[in-house]
């Protein structure tokens, strides 16, 4: 796999999600952590954009961050895979490089 892109801010607050998605491509993955985790919940204003993005890149969400904010795996978009911290480490290891979009 190519690049693991990490996003940590809510798309309602910052434009990071847009800015990342438009600059990545085949083989790239996106991991949603911290405040960005809520964008993985279905039924928000960003559901359509994330569903479209999932057709191109693999999307992951950090489950402990989601749980902290009151959501569980049942609330997730089908196209997003939930990982724990060990899964996070595994994503880092299996991609060639990590790009944190700060």
């Amino acid at each position: 796999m190519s690049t693991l892109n990490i996003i940590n801010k809510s798309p309602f607050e910052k434009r990071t999600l847009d800015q990342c998605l438009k600059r990545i491509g085949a083989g790239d993955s996106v991991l949603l952590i911290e405040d960005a985790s809520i964008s993985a919940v279905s039924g928000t204003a960003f559901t359509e954009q994330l569903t479209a993005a999932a057709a191109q890149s693999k999307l992951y969400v950090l489950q402990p961050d989601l749980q902290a904010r009151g959501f569980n795996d049942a609330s997730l978009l089908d196209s997003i895979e939930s990982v724990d911290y060990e899964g996070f480490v595994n994503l880092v290891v299996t991609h060639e490089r990590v790009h944190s979009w700060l």
Partner: protein
Amino acid sequence: MEEEEYQGGEVKKFLYVNRRLPHGTIYALESLETVLIGAAFDQDVSMLFVDDGVYQLKKEQAPESIECKNFSKTYRALEMYDVEKLFVERESLEERGLAIDDLLVDVELIASSDVKALVDEHDVILSF
């Protein structure tokens, strides 16, 4: 805290505007600490939850998963401190796919177009 007393007698209307998610930053938690002190000082305290601030009131928060404090139950205790005016913007909930049943406490729903009138009623606006 024994030093936390105010003898001035004057009462102002404070509006706490909460616009951020809990846990990603400390603002929600430290804002709540301010609200409690403001109430203890017998000031007139209202809280407004807009934008990502509505997530602060989401049920079933479990920040034990990230070894952080679960302060969400404090919102339930606000009534005991005479902080009874919690306003939530309807449009902010809707954009996030949330409904009033998803919230921890009883709130008053207001429309985006009512926010200005609410702000105009207050003397001091604190937004963290």
